[in-house]
């Protein structure tokens, strides 16, 4: 198993390199100019100088390797330094100085150049790290809620196959599967914030939880986006759960378990459930990156300023480094969760031997 994991880890490196080339090429081939917003009164030779200052004068492959170097070597060094200096988790460790470089002219350590956003002129990773908690709170909670609703629905509708509950459940999951989030979002806003006035329609990111009332407000503003995202998750996962349970309920070992007099509850909830969870868990792992992608729309509807909204604003502002970084973070997540799903599958299912 360990050798398989290591082999999978090594093969994911070329995958990531390929994706980085695709993203880089797409952004390089695209005819966008970061100087397009600069006033026309600025003479062309000055514009050219500005372009070179942004590092756009170098040949494409130099830019590509510089970007890779920034993403995989320089930025992680800053991350480690930040963690040992300021974060609560690793702050007790001695402060590290990985990100500093010796400057022979000044005769002292200076920080290395970081990847800078065209829009804000500040390091990209700092902005991304500021935005990630918002996305994680909404998306992560929605995913957990979705799974917690989906599993019982899937189990029960498979157990009572063709019953009214099963028919209704299948229909509702099909509807949830088909209604896009950019429709459920406005629909829920119309119902719950406009007509009923129960919940706020816009997610206030600056809201600070300090007492019970503000906690309740935080909860109420999270309900709508979580509901929209959870509907999609529930629809997908309960379909998988139901299909997987149906596959297992007709197996011989279930008949054996019943024949030896086990309680129905034990048969379904222990024997069948544990076996049918194997494919479902991999589906859950595989779904994590796609829900982050889908959150782009939900964040846009509810005004959650998470990482998806950051991507959209960066796109409209022609902020190439930011777009590149965020897209690549999404890609890393996909590759990582594919790997996790593969490894989990091997760990959970003793019938599967990779070696």
């Amino acid at each position, binding site marked *: 198993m360990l050798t398989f994991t290591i082999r999978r880890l090594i093969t994911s490196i070329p995958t990531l390199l390929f994706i980085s080339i695709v993203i880089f090429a797409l952004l390089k081939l*695209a005819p966008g100019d970061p100087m397009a917003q600069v006033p026309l009164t600025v003479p062309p030779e000055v514009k050219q100088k500005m372009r070179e200052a942004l590092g756009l004068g170098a040949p494409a492959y130099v830019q590509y390797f510089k970007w890779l170097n920034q993403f995989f070597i320089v930025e992680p060094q800053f991350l480690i330094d930040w963690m040992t200096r300021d974060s609560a988790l690793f702050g007790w460790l001695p402060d590290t100085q990985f990100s500093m470089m010796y400057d022979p002219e000044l005769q002292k350590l200076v920080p290395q150049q970081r990847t800078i956003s065209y829009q804000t002129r500040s390091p990209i990773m700092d902005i991304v790290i500021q935005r990630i908690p918002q996305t994680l709170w909404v998306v992560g909670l929605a995913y957990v809620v979705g799974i917690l609703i989906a599993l019982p629905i899937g189990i029960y509708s498979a157990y009572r196959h063709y019953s009214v509950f099963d028919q209704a459940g299948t229909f509702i999951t099909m509807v949830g599967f088909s209604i896009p989030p950019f429709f459920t979002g406005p629909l829920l*806003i119309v119902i719950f914030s406009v007509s009923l006035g129960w919940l706020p329609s816009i997610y206030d990111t600056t809201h600070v939880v300090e007492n019970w009332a503000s906690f309740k407000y935080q909860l109420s503003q999270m309900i709508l986006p979580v509901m929209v995202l959870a509907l999609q998750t529930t629809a997908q996962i309960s379909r998988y759960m139901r299909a997987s349970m149906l596959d297992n309920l007709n197996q011989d070992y279930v008949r054996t378990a019943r024949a030896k007099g086990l309680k129905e509850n034990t048969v379904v909830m222990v024997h069948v459930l544990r076996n049918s969870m194997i494919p479902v868990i991999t589906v859950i792992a595989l779904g994590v990156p796609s829900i982050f992608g889908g959150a782009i729309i939900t964040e846009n509807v509810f005004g959650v300023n998470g990482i998806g909204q950051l991507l959209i604003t960066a796109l409209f502002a022609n902020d190439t480094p930011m777009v590149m970084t965020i897209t690549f973070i999404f890609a890393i997540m996909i590759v990582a969760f594919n790997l996790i799903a593969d490894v989990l599958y091997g760990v959970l299912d003793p019938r599967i031997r990779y070696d």
Partner: protein
Amino acid sequence: MTDISTEIDPYAALQDKEPAKPPRNQWLDVWDQFKKHKGAVFGGGFLVFITLAVLLGPYIWNVDPQKLDIRNKDVRPLWTALWNSDAKTLWHRPFGTDNLGRDLLAQMIAGGRASMAVGWTAMLLSLSIGTAVGVAAGFFKRLDGLLMRMTDLFLSLPILPLLLVAVTLFRQPLRANFGPEGGMFILIVVVVGLTSWMQTARIVRGEVLALKEREFILAARSIGTSSRAIIMRHLLPNVISPIMVSATLGLAVAIITESALSFLGVGFPSDFPTWGKMLADAVPRMEQFPERVLLPGIAISLTVLGVNYLGDGLRDALDPRIRGR
């Protein structure tokens, strides 16, 4: 056991009789199974209805969707008069008008045309790429490793962010070459087609790998049929059922993706109605005019629901293990 064997006349069993009636067509069996799935019949019916409505609609309801009629702006649909007698309704504007006085029914038809055109074309493109890759990978052993590796790589691309990037960045040059609507149409269709063929390729490859070892392929090869003819005449007709199922899935994905792009404001130009665009434009004023969000939203959802049900029914109907049960 024994009494059965005595009843059979051994001579009659050896006689080569003609079958009483010609064997039933396979597609009739499929149709019989398909009819049992109520949702699929409804879904297929709705898809046919909406396709006909957007194709023939402009000839029946020949109001120009772009015509501005600023005196009759913000007209509510007819049915609001049922509970709100003060609402401004007009008999010749059954779905009402938007904030510039454009007829909503005509816009719905025009928007549906765009959405369905994008959906069908992108689906056909992704199907042809997927089938070509799948058949090539399954049939030619030399290409298998390479093509499947490529499929895996494509599967690990972050699709929605890349779609957004591609559509935003390549909008300008395509607009310059093919006009604002044509350029956007080509861009969305190509981009959606290029990023959604992987599942089809995997399924088709699996089917082809299994079919390739069957006797009829060996027979065809032994009489000297070329690879090209084997693929066209023997393989493709046999993989048509998984292709049809993934076609329905592809259509749903393409319609949703187009609407999502329009909703995020990177789709078609603002004067060109599509369902996603209409929905996005209506969101800021949805408190006063909820129908402008509901109508396109329901149209998208029902179409996708219908297509998904159609796919479900087709999968059951085309699976010979389920058929006849």
